């Protein structure tokens, strides 16, 4: 589904990603862990196509096509979803209007007719249950006045609405209390299918108690320095990132 080969990327002239290799198959959950500044969020943003990040070397194939050729909106329409670490507010734009536009852009891309207002509202009602989000939130402007937890929940709600092939959750657990964490994780698990995949980018092992990864990768200094099964997450929790640094001889 996703294949990353020798990916290098720079931000404002500084190289952050220094040769990432990663293979993700349908049905898999991958966790990417690592200390602050290791390049985890950069990787998420590069995949989503943020203009600030410039790819200088390497290739990415997504669903059999060259991802780097595609504009951010095309990547999204092809099924790549990023749950933002800091979802931005868009004042005056209602969640309903925003999501209806997004859903119908996805449908147009697939050659489907746009949903009517009533079909759309029905779909929204259905998906709201997945993340236990209230109508109060969906009736507001995009992320405006949302608490940190509400914003993250809203991200997963959008993920449920758009049914992506590959979801990247960028530090979705940060700023969540334990109840919100559970709700978000349940949402992600409920959306899990054989034909979609998830990348969980996280600093802590905590979220991985709820979303069980098939593979865990540790990023350090712009590279994936260690990959293993879910047990790696526990080892990290126990020994801390210094252990990795030591292993690398630093």
């Amino acid at each position, binding site marked *: 589904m996703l294949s990353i080969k020798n990916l290098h990327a720079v931000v404002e002239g500084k190289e952050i990603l220094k040769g990432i290799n990663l293979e993700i198959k349908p049905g898999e959950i991958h966790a990417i862990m690592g200390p602050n500044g290791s390049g985890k969020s950069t990787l998420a943003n590069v995949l989503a196509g943020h203009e600030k990040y410039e790819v200088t070397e390497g290739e990415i194939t997504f669903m059999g096509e060259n991802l780097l050729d595609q504009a951010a909106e095309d990547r999204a*329409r092809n099924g790549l979803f990023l749950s933002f670490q800091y979802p931005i507010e868009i004042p005056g734009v209602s969640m309903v209007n925003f999501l209806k536009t997004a859903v119908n*852009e996805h449908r147009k891309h697939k050659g489907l007719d746009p949903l009517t207002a009533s079909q759309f509202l029905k779909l929204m009602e259905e998906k709201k249950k997945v993340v236990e989000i209230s109508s109060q939130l969906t009736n507001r402007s995009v992320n405006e006045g949302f608490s940190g937890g509400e914003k993250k929940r809203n991200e997963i709600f959008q993920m449920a609405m758009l049914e992506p092939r590959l979801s990247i959750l960028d530090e979705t657990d940060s700023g969540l209390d334990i109840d919100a964490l559970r709700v978000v994780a349940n949402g992600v698990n409920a959306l899990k299918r054989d034909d979609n995949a998830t990348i969980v980018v996280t600093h802590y092992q905590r979220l991985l108690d709820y979303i069980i990864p098939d593979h865990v990768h540790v990023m350090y200094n712009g590279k994936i320095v260690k990959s293993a099964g879910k047990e790696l997450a526990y080892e990290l929790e126990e020994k801390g990132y210094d252990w990795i640094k030591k292993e690398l001889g630093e």
Partner: protein
Amino acid sequence: MTEQDKLLEQVTNEDYKFGFVTDIETDIIDIGLNEDVVRLISLKKEEPEWMLDFRLKAYRKWLEMKAPDWAYLKVPPIDYQSISYYAAPKQKKKLNSLDEVDQELLDTFNKLGIPLEEQKHLAGVAVDAVMDSVSVKTTFKEVLAEKGIIFCSFSEAVREFPDLVKKYLGNAVPYADNYFAALNSAVFSDGSFCYIPKGVRCPMELSTYFRINAANTGQFERTLIVADDDSYVSYLEGCTAPMRDENQLHAAVVEIIAMERAEVKYSTVQNWYPGDKNGKGGIYNFVTKRGICRGDYSKISWTQVETGSAITWKYPSCVLMGDHSKGEFYSVALTNHHQQADTGTKMIHIGKNTKSLIVSKGISAGVSNNSYRGLVKVSKRADNARNFSQCDSLLMGSKCGAHTFPYIECANKSAILEHEATTSKISEDQIFYCNQRGIDTEDAVAMIVNGYAKEVLNKLPMEFAVEAQKLLALSLEGSVG
């Protein structure tokens, strides 16, 4: 240039779609301005003596006046002798029914989305269509007449209802009010007149659509709306012009009088040709709009969406004379490329317990300059006056300017006046967020800008709001971030 910028530029550089010219024989008078021209206009309109006197007084006053230079605008010198002050599409004499209106004219207004055939018209809006110096057609006149509502061209009102016109003309905007009002009073051509009798709620939206067609002409229309005691009317105004390399002058006057407990809502979507990307051509829009809340508990509300014109100089104002009267001003002003706008309002509190509300949303893009200028004045006897002003500016790119000039003059200690202002930019992160959900940059910008302007757009009548949203999206161009 980034991909986003390129796309944004491509999309927003779409041509001004109202820029066509109607090929119709036009009765146009020679360029230049003097007393004879004023007399000629009056003669062509078969006006009574008192009307000509009004024009001449205004003209003589205008000669002594100077163009205002206090606005934050760079106005190239205007040669008033190089403009023709009267242009009328040639029609058969005296129209009795729509069948007699020239097909070319009907087609023009159809193309603008203003069908003049009543049966084809969306229910609920009566239109007075004005091209260059004359009113082409007023729809639904008969239906309105049943309720005693007068809705007709200004020229017709001067002929048919001279007493009403005489009584109210110049009440809100005296001929000597300012340079452009004086010029308008001297040479005004046509416009709309509307009178809502006591206790009548006008059953449909009234609207005037102004179209400049002929070259080298100015448009000087005049609108007068009188709402008698306990009446209500919602009025819409739209305007477009062909794309021409030269600048054309538009100096209009709108007067509103609201009597006891009357309410008037006046909405404008101003889409005069803004000039091209390099600032060539476009309309100079110098407009005086003022309403008087004469009666107690009366209310006047101005809503404007300003996207057109090379230069806009416009301050729809309310004089709150009646006790408990209320004035409102909602504005979205968008400037792009080389456009300049200096627009805002004046709220003059004279009666007791008067209230005013100002919501202004400026959007600047390209290398344009957009200024809000507003005056809130509380006179000595205006006890318990209340004003709330909110002035927001949105900047797109780094070459445009947004300016705010709020003036407050308060002579009564019981007044409560509040002013809030914000300046913001559309951020790349907002656009990226939309992109990541499958929404392209063009739609994202339109969505964000419309969200920003929502509070004002919501005040527009439904059909107008949809048009205005599209217009905002179309009028945008330039870099983001």
